[in-house]
């Protein structure tokens, strides 16, 4: 018989945290995927490393440093793109690898009590006291903002020109979206780590996109798939004694693969059948 992992308090807490950050990331991922900004999540998540180390050295809150570094990456990329001939994806690649490398050098040259592998891969089973509450409040606030702006953000992704012709402040809205991504990365950093948070910011949205032609459904599917991923992922990592964040991401990738193969409308099998008829 396999032991029920959620009989343990620390695993139940981990699951709570996972559900909250998973929900925030899943909702954001829908916008990122539709805006074609998948790489932006990748970039921001890598770029937080120097911020973490510098904040530690300066005695500031680490999460604050991470957020600032993430925003610097996003804004710097935007500025470079607007003022050079290089395309956005290339600019992002240059900026975030540069910042990440800078962070690594800083890290190796300073004596810190920070664990690099906790930053990179998270430590959801070793949450500090009070972290559940902190995640709940921050995540809740972000979800509130997302609910409030959901239609405006959707329009920004779909047709920024129309948004502009309605007199909406598209520039500010874009920056709000960037700030939300950076905040989501920071929120998830301690739990799943900066290397795997990007999966949280891309995969659920893609799964939802495959399964539904309507945005509302796409979002619900994305969120649901993330809950399943955290619930099963944490359980698997407990049973197999394997890396937790990796297990979570693996389940998420599995769900995506399932959607791709079996999903209606766009699914591979379904399409085969239509062709045969």
């Amino acid at each position, binding site marked *: 018989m396999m032991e029920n992992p959620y009989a343990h308090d620390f695993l139940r807490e981990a699951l709570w945290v996972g559900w909250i950050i998973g929900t925030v990331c899943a909702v954001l991922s829908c916008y990122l995927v539709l805006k074609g900004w998948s790489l932006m999540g990748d970039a921001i998540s890598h770029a937080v490393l120097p911020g973490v180390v510098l904040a530690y050295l300066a005695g500031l809150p680490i999460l604050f440093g991470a957020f600032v570094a993430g925003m610097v990456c996003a804004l710097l990329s935007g500025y470079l793109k607007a003022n050079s001939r290089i395309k956005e994806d290339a600019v992002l690649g240059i900026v975030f690898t540069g910042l990440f490398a800078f962070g690594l050098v800083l890290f190796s040259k300073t004596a810190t009590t920070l664990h690099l592998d906790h930053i990179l891969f998270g430590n959801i089973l070793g949450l500090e006291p009070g972290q559940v509450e902190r995640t709940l409040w921050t995540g809740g606030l972000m979800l509130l903002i997302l609910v409030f702006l959901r239609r405006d953000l959707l329009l920004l992704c779909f047709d920024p020109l*129309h948004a502009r012709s309605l007199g909406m402040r598209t520039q500010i809205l874009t920056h709000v979206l960037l700030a939300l991504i950076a905040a989501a990365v920071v929120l998830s950093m301690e739990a799943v780590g900066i290397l795997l948070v990007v999966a949280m910011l891309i995969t659920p949205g893609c799964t939802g996109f495959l399964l539904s032609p309507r945005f509302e459904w796409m979002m619900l599917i994305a969120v649901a798939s993330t809950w399943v991923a955290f619930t099963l992922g944490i359980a698997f990592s407990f049973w197999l004694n394997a890396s937790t964040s990796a297990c979570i991401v693996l389940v998420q990738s599995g769900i995506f693969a399932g959607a791709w193969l079996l999903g209606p409308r766009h699914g591979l099998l379904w399409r085969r059948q239509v062709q045969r008829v």
Partner: protein
Amino acid sequence: MTTPCISTPMSLRVEGVTVTYPNGHTALKDASFSLEAGSICAMVGVNGSGKSTLFKSIMGFVEPQKGSVRIAGLGVKEACRANGVAYVPQSEEVDWSFPVLVRDVVMMGRYGHMNALRISRRADREAVRQALKRVGLLELQERQIGELSGGQKKRVFLARALAQEAKLILLDEPFTGVDVTTEHTIIGLLRELREAGHIILVSTHNLGSVPEFCDQVVLINRRILAQGTTSEVFTAENLLQAFGGKLRHFRLDDAPGSNPLVLTDDERPLVLGHGGKVEDKGDPSES
């Protein structure tokens, strides 16, 4: 909260607009023209002549380095916020795989009439329904936008502009890839809007249909080459200048009696009679 609205008659004044993109390319130079309420104006020029750029500066999406745009006497921002301007995008600029239904897109036209949460009220749903009905898409409103034909796709965004109830409508190439029936539906709608006092600015490569429904023409090639009524401006001489040899043109010497001049910018050809004046409005059902 009452919906902001423009009560004075619509007018459009573009004065000395110069747009230089960050890569240093000047897409528009010192462009000036003006339009009064109740007109349909064709914007004609080669690819890259700055038509879309001009539209974007009228909507405030690109900021001109010089010059100004006034809409019903207001600045661009104020006019947009008062639901003064609607934009129908070029088809290639739309992501047709986006997970929204036809109805959702038309509802986006109502956002300016809603509160900050964009929750639709009965008036909004009714406006959407009317708009869908006018363009003949009521039956298809539950489709994802990618599941439409080319002509139906165009009409979705036209419906959005109708639902928006803006008095200035910018249409970027509404006739590319559209069959004759749809073209006539669109033209019929635009005429109705003109009667209602709207200003409609249409960029098009469809030269043949311009005399049919446009009363004003702006010829553009980075600068405004000519502006005025269709009969004054839309002449062979002006067009050949605007297109600088990029126009297919040939004389039909075989035609008995006259030898009309045929001009085409790759879509519906324009047929001009003696003296390069508009002669045949080119019944499309014959071509």
